[in-house]
């Protein structure tokens, strides 16, 4: 019986995204390549090219993270490739896969690496306009209702890693400190901005997934100014 083309394509992609095809030598892969009736050396080259392209996409968003992997880099990337085949051609999607893998697996040095990865991913998402931009416009929300700005991404980190994001080489290793950050875009700004937030405002913003009528609190002293400040910082959106 003739094998369906989709089955053959699936087997081929499984192979081309496998650690064996990407990392092993021609000698190691020759038998498996021959199963497709193709030149195993060329399949190895295809697999390697595709993997390098994927890692370049991940490096676009997570460059500091990759640098900080240090001597663990080769082994870690291989483990990632072997357990996380690419699901999309997108830079952000591949970066999210890598970040999730790192957050789940990293137990090494430096201990603040998961924070760096989460920060870099958030920054890339905001820069690409891919925070929560897909959220549905709640047209039935009352005018004047507020919600967390769809562009804003909130981040809890165990270290204040902002100095090493500025200068990886010169900044001292960050000390442990619970830090609440917001990454967002200001109107007419080309690059994201980062704010450190007090815990109470962080929690407030976390709860503002949906448009909420601020009417009950608006009479409190300073509330209008407070909301205006959050809007100016790109953290809150008002239903117009």
């Amino acid at each position, binding site marked *: 019986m003739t094998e*369906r*083309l*989709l089955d053959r*394509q*699936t087997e*081929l*992609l*499984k192979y*081309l*995204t496998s650690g064996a095809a990407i990392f092993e*030598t*021609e000698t190691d892969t020759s038998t498996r390549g021959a199963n*497709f*009736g*193709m*030149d195993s*050396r*060329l*399949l*190895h*080259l*295809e697999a390697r*090219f*595709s993997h390098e*392209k*994927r890692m370049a*996409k991940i490096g676009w968003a997570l460059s500091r993270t990759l640098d900080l992997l240090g001597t663990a880099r080769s082994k870690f990337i291989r483990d990632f490739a072997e357990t996380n*085949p*690419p*699901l*999309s*051609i*997108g830079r*952000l999607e591949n970066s999210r896969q890598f970040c999730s893998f790192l957050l789940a697996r990293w137990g090494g040095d430096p201990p603040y690496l998961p924070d760096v990865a989460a920060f870099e991913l958030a920054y890339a998402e905001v*820069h*690409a*306009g*891919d925070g929560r*931009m897909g959220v549905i416009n709640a047209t039935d929300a009352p005018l004047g209702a507020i919600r967390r700005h769809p562009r804003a991404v909130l981040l809890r980190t165990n270290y204040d890693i902002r100095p090493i994001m500025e200068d990886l080489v010169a900044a001292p290793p960050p000390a442990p400190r619970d830090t609440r950050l917001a990454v967002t875009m200001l109107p007419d700004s*080309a690059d994201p901005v980062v704010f450190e937030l007090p815990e109470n405002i962080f929690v407030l913003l976390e709860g503002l997934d949906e448009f909420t009528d601020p009417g009950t609190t608006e009479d409190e002293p300073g509330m209008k100014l407070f909301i205006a400040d959050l809007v100016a910082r790109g953290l809150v959106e008002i239903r117009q």
Partner: protein
Amino acid sequence: MTTGARPLVGVGYRSILDEWIRNNLNRFEVLEVTVDNFKVGGEASQAAIVDLVGQIPLTAHGIGLSIGTDGPLDFAYLDEIAAIIDRVRATAYSEHLAFTQVPGYSLGNLLPLPSTEAVAESVIAKVRCIQSRISVPFLLENITYLFQWPDSDLSDAEFLNLICSETGSGLLLDIENLYLNASNHGVDPYAFLDALPPGLAKEMHLAGGVTVRESFLEQPFLADSHSHRVPDGAWDLLEYALVRQKPHSIIIERFDAVDEILDDVTHLRTRIDRVFGAPA
């Protein structure tokens, strides 16, 4: 000397080149927008592309359709692309005759299909479906490949011609891909060009790649990296192709080294002049 409209000359648009492209807009007659980049771009990058509408013709190019996957088309994706095509008022929409993904795996590299009549029939049905859902002509692009399927029994040109003749779809002739396949696999590029019906190529691509040397390879391989000047061999193929093909546009695919892009644009016009004569 040949007659007919001269092809428009342009480059591929990328957000990182936006400022440079705007500053040099009068050097180009067309821009190629990658619809998949538009799709995932933020508001600002989308607005920058939409701002170009009316200033210069835009043509739409895709990398994410995977028309060759042996499964149903992704209609949700296609409808998003159709909306982008309308939004940027693209003159055509091109995609690669290739597959990049199956459920659960997305390689991100263009892979060849078995060149058989059965596979062509499957692609023909999809092309017809695409044509019914988009508002502009659909073009298929020839790819470069590292390997071929053992059951392929049609030549590259026969495979493309079969699909294009059955569907009326045009060809986006990537000269660099043809040049690479000739070098890597011994395909006769002139025989390929001779086998194409006159007028089939509606658009063309030019680019420059790198040579890959590995101890496990019997010969160096050329790879399509869009990172170097267009090689002489590709210019010669372009000139040969232009005698029988009258594309609407020719795009230089390069996204760095802007001075070299402009050099290639200038040289492209020289090559067009040699076939069409100097512009009046």
